[in-house]
Every structure is written in C-alpha cells, then in structure tokens.
C-alpha cells in the first residue's frame, strides 16, 4: 500500500517530457525523488475528484524512461514487464517499479484523495496530474537490487 504523492503520465506526456530534456529545457515539475503512475484516468463525475484510474501497460514507456531516471525519478507504477534495459537502469538509478492490478480501476480510484493538474492540460486524459494517494494497492515488481517478480514466478508448479 502506497501513500503520498504520485504524478500521472502516459505516452503523450512522456514524449513531451523527453523532448524537453533533449532540448535541455526545464521540466514543468520536479522529478527528483518522485513516482510516476502510468494512467489516463476517466473523467470525474460531478461530486467526485477523479474517475476510474487503473494502470496502463508499462512497456510503451520503456524507450522514454531512462531520461526521466536520470532526472531523479525514483519509481514507476504500471502493469506488465519492463525491458531488460530498463530493469538494468532501474538498478543503476535505484528506482522501483510497482504493478497495480490492471482493470481494478474503480477500486484503485478510491485510494486517490486529492487531484490537481501539474502539466499539459491540453492532453485531456493524458494530462499530468498530481495525485495524493492513501493506501494505494500496488505490488513491487522490480526492486533496487535487480529482482523481478514476473521473472520469479514458478511456471512449473501451474502445469
């Protein structure tokens, strides 16, 4: 269970952030020590702060992750395996990758207690939001020592 601040960012926001880094420009928010949650939430219904908000598949962000790790990003939340290159980089930069349960989006949104827009409102569902979460359900997949929970699964015992 995670509690604290996470930033949302998925495909489009990653492309923008990495472009800024390439050009040597300042990022719209400080990544140092922060966690990015790969999600494009559903819109909030009246009286709610956010709609359903489960993880999207992480591998699409793999080619765009290392520049963010270099800027101090210390964790990501998504679903599915990371590439060997990213796993190595996470060990090097001491970052953790968590999986949340894909499709458990209504349930996960219950753990989000505050929402504000941090960058790129023009991206609609892909805008970067700053979320405050309390008891957000997530599982550590890659720790800073190079372990990988997907790789550790015992396929043989399920045959």
């Amino acid at each position: 269970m995670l509690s604290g601040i996470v930033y949302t960012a998925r495909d489009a926001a990653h492309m923008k952030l990495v472009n800024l880094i390439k050009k040597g420009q300042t990022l719209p928010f400080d990544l140092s020590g922060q966690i990015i949650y790969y999600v494009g939430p559903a819109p909030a219904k009246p009286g709610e702060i956010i709609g359903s908000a489960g993880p999207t598949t992480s591998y699409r962000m793999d080619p765009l992750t290392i520049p963010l790790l270099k800027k101090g990003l210390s964790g990501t939340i998504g679903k599915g395996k990371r590439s060997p290159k990213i796993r190595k980089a996470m060990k090097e930069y001491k970052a953790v990758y968590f999986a949340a349960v894909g499709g458990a989006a209504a349930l996960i949104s219950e753990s989000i207690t505050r929402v504000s827009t941090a960058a790129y409102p023009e991206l609609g569902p892909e805008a970067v939001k700053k979320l405050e979460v309390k008891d957000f359900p997530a599982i550590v997949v890659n720790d800073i020592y190079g372990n990988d929970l997907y790789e550790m699964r015992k396929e043989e015992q399920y045959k």
Partner: protein
Amino acid sequence: MKKIAKSLIVNRVAQMCQEANFVLNDDIKKALLRARKEESSEMGKNIFQQLIDNYQLAEKKKVPICQDTGYTVIFVELGEDVKVEGNLQEALFEGVKKGYKEGYLRKSIVKDPFNRENTGDNTPPVIHTEIVSGNKLKLYLMAKGGGSENMSKIKMLSPAQGQEGVIDFVVDTVRRADANPCPPVIVGVGLGGTFEKAALLSKKALLRDLDDAHSDPKTAKLEKKILNKINKLGIGPQGLGGTRTALGVKIEKYPCHIASLPAAVNINCHAARHKKAVL
C-alpha cells in the same frame, strides 16, 4: 418496411456505451467468481478478489470498470425490411458521443496515428455492417481496451500447418503477451477467409458468451484444447503466476483459399465489455 427513428438508435447506443462500461455481463462475473475458487496461486486468488470487488463497486457507483473505456466497435445487422429514419451512421456516431459524454467515460481516440490529437468525444466508432433478411436492426457494441488490442496478432499460415500450427500460434501469442493484456484474458480466434476476414472473425468471436461452446463439436473441442494449453503457461492473473491465464477461447471460422490458412488472434482483457440491442 419497418421504420426506426434515428433518435431511438442514438439513445440506445448511448445507453449501451455506459452499461457496457459500468456493468460486467453475467457470464464474465460468473467466470471471475469461479476462477477465484479454482486458482491455485494465493496471489492469484487475491487478484481475483480485487477484480470482483472492482466490478461490484463500478456497478454500484455507475463508474467505469476500467479507466480505458475503449474503442467503440459496433457490429450492425441491418434487416432488409428496416428503414432508418435519418442516417444510420450518423445515429451511431451521435450515440457514442452522447454515451461517452454523459457517462463520464474516457475519450481514448486520437484523430491521426501520428499527430495524436484527441477527437474529444470517442468518435469515430469502428462499424461493421451486415445486411440480413428480416425487419430487425441488431447492434452488438463492444468497448475494446487498447492494452489487450495491442497484443493481438495475425498470421497467414500454410495449409499444411493445419490445426497444430493454429494451436501453436494462438498459445504463443498469449505467451508473448504475458502480463501486458491484463490476464486472465479472453481469446478470440478467427480462422479462414482472407487477411482482413480472419481479423474480423477474431473480434466477432469475442462477442460470444463465455459459456457458449461452438456449435460444431470439433471446433468446440479445439476451443477447449487451446484453453487448457494456455492455462498451463503459468502466466496467471496479472502475470504473477497461476492456473487461470484465460477465461475462454472462442473460435470463428470461414471458408478459405486453397493456398491459405489465415489465423487471427484478438485478445481481450478480463473486463470484456459488450452489450447487444435488438430494435
């Protein structure tokens, strides 16, 4: 000639978009409950419990089961004796627009594969129309998630590769997809026809009830055989290991060319959202 008003279609499509996203069909609910019991991994059981709690909460609060409220795919069966008052395509577009706006569903469609600007209302839907006899308009609407769609594949097999070639291709596609498409998955398989027909059949297969075995006993047997093989991969719920990697395999077939054996695999996530309407 039976007349159907455009407004009736608009409203029904809007309602289906919302219902599909808020309320899981009974066959999927039953399968998740059964899988929670049958899954041998403790982590897997726990994930099934989360998925069950999630669909119950979504239904109660009328919020989307998954934040990816999908690409709207509509299969239309238009009876020859039906006259739509107004334009059918317009009605379907307007229905999607209304459903996604009023249901606070996520708008997930971009105008162009490269410029990626959001259309803002989840249109256009993908529409497949068949003209049939009779005086009914049947609509099968699916809200198809992008994560599982990305893991789908098509392959033009040689006739000599036969059933074994098909089994290997389907199982391998699920194996490679691993944790990405939100397992437990539902696997739609299209066999035969042409390149595009096989893909279409694989999507159509996903509309079938999970409990529904194929009417041809040999194909029904093949569906079971592939499902068993997939569930022995050990991928399990969310890819964290277990015995329930897929909830079902559905095959649709069509005659094919003497040179070909097209095979398409369309993967759906456990949040398999589709509704049917007969007007």
